[in-house]
């Protein structure tokens, strides 16, 4: 219940933040990497860095992380298959992976693991659609029911809760 409440708060605060739909969309697309791909990997450090320093919605990124974690777990067999194909079956790519796996720093990316590589590739493929889809969703939301939600009793209760207050302390 607490998790659901937190999720709703997170969703509400993102949708009603000052961020533009583009910023929120980019935040979602970047944050999806944290959920879709195994977290303890070097590329996620880069994603976190981008979420922090790029002018995108960090909150949307965190929200997308939470949303895409179960999706990532569900799609692991698919990632494994894609990674297997890229690393083992596609012999023409072997020189690339051989060079990658033997290059300082790049070797630390764990892209020689089927699940890591497969999930990163899927995330990169989904990056643009995720960005555009979430941007469109935010625009539609704000145009249609955004203001009504803002005025609703439920939103006010949600906003008045402790979590929201804590969030507001850190709001710029």
């Amino acid at each position, binding site marked *: 219940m607490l998790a659901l409440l937190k999720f709703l708060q997170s969703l509400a605060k993102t949708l009603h933040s000052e961020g533009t739909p583009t910023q929120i969309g980019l935040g979602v697309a970047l944050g999806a990497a944290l959920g879709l791909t195994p977290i303890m990997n070097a590329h996620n450090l880069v994603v976190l860095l981008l979420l922090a320093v*790029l002018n995108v919605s960090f909150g949307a990124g965190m929200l997308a992380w939470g949303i895409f974690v179960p999706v990532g777990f569900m799609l692991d067999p698919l990632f494994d298959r894609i990674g297997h194909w890229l690393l083992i079956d596609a012999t023409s790519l072997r020189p690339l992976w051989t060079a990658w*796996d033997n290059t300082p720093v790049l*070797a630390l990316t764990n892209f020689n*693991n089927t699940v890591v590589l497969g999930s990163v590739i899927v995330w990169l493929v989904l990056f643009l659609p995720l960005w555009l889809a979430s941007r469109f969703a935010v625009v539609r939301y704000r145009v249609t029911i955004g203001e009504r939600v803002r005025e609703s009793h439920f939103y006010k209760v949600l906003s008045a809760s402790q979590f929201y207050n804590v*969030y507001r302390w850190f709001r710029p």
Partner: protein
Amino acid sequence: MSTAGSVRSGDAPVYGPPAAGGGPPNDQAMKPRLAIFRWKGIIPLILGLALVATVWLLFADRLLRSSAEEAGTRALGTELDVATLHFDLVHTSIQLNGVAIADPFDARRNLLEVKQLFVQLEPEPLLEKKLVITRLTIGDVRTGTPRSTPARPVAAGGFAPSALHEMQQWAKQFDVPLLSLTPIDTIKSIALDPAQLSSIKAALALGQRADSTRTNLQRSFTSLPLQATLDSSHALLTRLQGVNVRTLGLTGARNAVADIRRASARVDSLKTQIEGLATSAKTAGDSLQAGLRAVDDARRADYEFAKRLIKLPSFDAPDIGSALFGKVTIDKVQQAVYWTELARQYMPPGLLPKPSPGPPRLRASGTTVHFVRPQAYPRFLLRRADVDVTVSDGPGRGKYVGAVQDATTEPALVGKPMLFAIQRAANGSAVDSLRITGTLDHAGARPRDVLTVQAGGMELPNFPIPGLPYRAAPGRGNSALRLTLAGDQLDAHWSLASGKLAWIADSAARKMNTIESLVAKVLTGVPALQMNAQIAGPIKAPKLAINSNLDRVVADQLRSVVGSQVAAAEAKVRARVDSLVDEKAAPVKAKIATVRAEADQRIADARTKLDAEKQKLDAQVKQFSGGLVRLP
């Protein structure tokens, strides 16, 4: 932390209530006010990194220790414990204390306990996730120490546990004979189940094969146009009988000769087919005959099976040797083979990508593929390690000197075999001298591993005598083991020699029967031990052969005392097996004889008929041509 785009101070919020009658917030209008970078975000990032650095400083050693334990346990297939670990990032070195590797074959014992272990790593390969050790220092090593808590079994799934399981299965495949000393006079009857006899199974299968061969031969024979060819030829000859060549004219004579030639060609073709069939019939008959010999071989195995069933003692010295030393030999070689197989797994030949299970995590582990590039660092390389070890207690206490060279995960990159040697030279403990050397050559396509262990003046372990309430105590002696694994061919020799063999009666000694007493009397009079064991052959199905002075003595004694009784019992066993097998094998033999005879008869008949027809056709041509033309 900012949750949305930062807004320049003084600017209106980017998102607000929509204007009356207005549409969605206009992105285009916001664009000029958006900055790409949010420099304020660097502050929490730095704070985050500082937090990570603090966690690293506080917990890195603990995390690495736990990872090392987990990875080591998985790799070795046995529990690896590390008391403390310190990783010095600046000097790229690792100091481990209290390293204990449990014996995979005995959970209550440590194979090795190392008090201090220092590893100096080359920094550059670390950026490629590769470990190149430039210096390795090991201090205070103890072997065979008891564990305070038994080692936990390693969860299945990795290579090492499965290799261990395979080795246990491997050890079970050996048919180690029992040293049976049952009194002969207690054998009243031999209860044999025919279904247990392999010769009966073989005979029944051969009977089915004979039936199928007979059907096939009959089908092949009936498919030949023998009668049609003979009838056609006969009709031609009848038509030409009494015809005068002059009345036919030149053309008629030419046609008649051509007809005869065609008929003759058909006969020749059929003869060729008959000869082919004869060859097939001979091959099939020979194969069935070979099957009969296989039944006889199986019958010999059944004699041995029946002898074991009623526990008849064997006089064959190799059997007695295997009964006495089989288990202990298999145990020793099994351990050596396990470590060799493990080395092969972690040092595979070739430069092809090597898949291995991914790291354990909540998410799916996947497969991690290691791509090897020529003239690059291998994933792991220990160029050379010279180790001076003092084992402070236990039966192996003393000073040891060891060296390891070119230990690597990619032998094809290093291009040299891994060499290792451990030597000991000190009196006054359980071992006077010990030398272990090994070569693991995986640089080529066919790996070749050689391991030799030589121990002199060693306190040899006591071992029980199967079937007798005695233990042999060889005392101090010499032991040598040499194991060669070339490709999948195993050749292991193990020898034991002791001049001071003692015999210890079991504390709860039971009353022995006559044969046991005799054997015990003979054995306990033997003052020395000389044993040679060999396990050789393909790794999947090697053969065990053992000989020792004990088995020769026991065999001779058994033969002289109960030889006639055993011979009589053996004859009884053979007769019983023969009666059961003959009941099934005799009809099969008869069936095979019938198949051969039938095939021979039919072929001979066909040959005779075709030869006669050919002669007739030849004669007819001669008649037409006046002896000038012969059939080809």
